[in-house]
């Protein structure tokens, strides 16, 4: 199993500390299905984005000041006085949107090809944990510039904890570090915003360890048993990932250099003012579907529970989906429900940006109900009754014809 390194120093070191052979197994030799399509690029894209966010964030932290009187000014100082500070900040703020876009696609791919099914449940769980940590990090990070939307977004979200019976208000005070959102709040948000990305890095490592245990799923969703079905990760998937990076960086670059403020809110260029509430308090686009679920329900506590539940339900997805066939390719009915689900999620995001009144409220309620119906009713029942198409024995066989 262990090929020896030709370089004697390397071989000596690796014999005592096997980092090189571990890296070689993971990044060079790792047998990977040869039929992966471009949707499998998004895992490594998410990885590179995490690195970009940490590096740009670290450089920003050298100039940022976490103080209610100085935070806004320090961000403008970065934009105006720091060499290429505008580039750093736009990379970091656009990067958060890009990160969520990629992760949403990555999750959608998992849903389409059944990547969450046995034996990859723990891999799926770790992914959800990363997603959850990302949500927290992004929320904390958005408060740091201390603009109007930062302040009021933080107000709305921290106030959600007051919905907890009996101790809710105490928890909110504890989170704030005082009786209102003030300097202690900003300070702790900054600390945590700095810390959590490194926890994400840790979970990403576990995610990769779990991935390499059974290897990547593939578009057919079948377990690969033949040797010819797999190819070494390097050079085939390294070069494919690099090509993916290229395409991604072009899109990233278009936003950073030409549309840097398109995905943000203009109000956040107004310094935070606790006495002036913005007309609409809207989170960043990537939170809108969950924000819609929160506001679709008239009771605060139930709304918070529904919002949390909409993410937590993903943990039990491997058991809610009772169908043994993984890939949508061989599940004609689930495939249609899959696209309805995606469409429903986009509509949720759209109503999330509107004031929850009239038509919008009705739409958000229907969509919220459908979101949970998909997981709790459609998926379990579908697994029992859906007639799946014949699944091939290996990736070289055409499943639709019985010959071959």
């Amino acid at each position, binding site marked *: 199993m262990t090929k020896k390194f030709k370089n004697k120093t390397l071989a000596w070191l690796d014999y005592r500390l096997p980092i090189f052979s571990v890296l070689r197994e993971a990044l060079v030799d790792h047998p990977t299905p*040869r039929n992966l399509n471009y949707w499998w690029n998004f895992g490594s894209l998410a990885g590179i984005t995490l690195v970009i966010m940490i590096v740009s964030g670290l450089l920003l932290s050298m100039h940022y000041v976490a103080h209610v009187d100085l935070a806004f*000014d320090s961000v*403008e100082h970065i*934009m*105006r006085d720091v060499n290429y500070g*505008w*580039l750093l900040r*736009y990379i970091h703020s656009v990067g958060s949107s890009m990160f969520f876009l990629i992760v949403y696609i990555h999750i959608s791919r998992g849903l389409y090809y059944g990547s969450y099914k046995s034996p990859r449940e723990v891999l799926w769980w770790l992914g959800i944990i990363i997603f959850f940590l990302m949500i927290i990090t992004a929320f904390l990070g958005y408060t740091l510039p201390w603009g109007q939307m930062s302040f009021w977004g933080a107000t709305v979200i921290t106030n959600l904890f007051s919905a907890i019976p009996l101790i809710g208000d105490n928890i909110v005070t504890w989170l704030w570090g005082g009786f209102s959102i003030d300097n202690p709040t900003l300070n702790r948000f900054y600390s945590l915003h700095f810390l959590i990305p490194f926890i994400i890095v840790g979970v990403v490592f576990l995610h990769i360890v779990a991935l390499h245990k059974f290897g990547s799923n593939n578009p057919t969703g079948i377990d690969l048993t033949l040797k010819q079905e797999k*190819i070494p990760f390097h*050079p*085939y998937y390294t*070069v*494919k990932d*690099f*090509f993916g990076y*290229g*395409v991604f*960086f*072009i899109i990233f*670059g*278009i936003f*950073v*250099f*030409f549309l*840097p*403020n398109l995905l943000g809110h*203009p*109000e956040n*260029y*107004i310094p935070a003012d606790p006495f002036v509430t913005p007309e609409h308090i809207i989170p960043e686009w990537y939170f809108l579907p969950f924000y819609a679920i929160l506001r679709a329900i008239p009771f605060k506590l139930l709304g918070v529970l529904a919002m949390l539940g909409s993410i937590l339900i993903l943990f039990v997805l491997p058991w809610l989906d009772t169908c043994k066939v993984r890939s949508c390719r061989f599940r004609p009915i689930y*495939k*249609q429900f899959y*696209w309805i689900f995606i*469409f429903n999620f*986009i*509509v949720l995001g*759209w109503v999330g940006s509107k004031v929850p009144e009239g*038509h*919008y409220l009705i739409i958000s309620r229907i969509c919220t109900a459908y979101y949970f119906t998909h997981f709790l009713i459609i998926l379990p029942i579908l697994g029992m009754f859906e007639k799946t198409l014949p699944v091939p024995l290996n990736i070289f066989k055409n499943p639709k014809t019985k010959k071959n």
Partner: protein
Amino acid sequence: MIKKFFFIIFSFFFLIPNLFAEEAMSLKKQNWSFEGIFGRYDNSTLQRGLQIYQEVCSACHGMKRLRFRELRDLGFTDGQIKIYAETFEILDGPNELGEMFLRPGEPSDTFVSPYKNKEEAKAAFGGAYPPDLSLLTKAIKNGPNYIYSLLTGYEESPPKGFELTDGLYYNPYYDGKVIAMPPPLYDNAIEYIDGTNASLDQLSYDIVHFLNWAAEPKLQQRKSLGLKVLLFLIVLTLLLYVTMKEIWSRIEK
């Protein structure tokens, strides 16, 4: 069948916003030279804008994030900037005696706001304080066109049945249509140093141009770097694509 279904659903999805469209004044759109991928600021427009700010706006509005040295972007020389900065008095200190003192401005100083703080401004204007202009065009959706529309959109007499309190002004572009700021610009409000005809449209265009530069001074640098980066990335990505095809051809035969 599924495709038809989605076509219907998606067309519905795009129709919905129009069904619920809210009534809003459409803004007067201008061709700003700083828009688009080749967007650039125009120096003479910026200089005229500075003159308007200096002679009109700065009576009430500050621009505290701007430093005199940044006027280099407008095409001024360091010497000119130094002389300009010296015309302002800056509160500095404390000195060795522990006292604050006034000194002439230096290029590294920021623009001087007309009021010491928000409270003083509020007191002077009966509660409605004039906002700092440094970031204005970025702090409003579609900022440049909005401010242009606002400046040129004052109407002398409000429509019939519209009650206007004394000391307030009617402007259909402003939220609530009633604004406390008197019309700041009008034809020939100032006399341009460069002799340009100072019509209301010209004045409004110039000041918005200047305000956008103040809010986004690195725009030119950003866009020109962006073009180079994108060009590089496109070439790199094409090369990576060819490399990928070449490597994968080893097993796809």
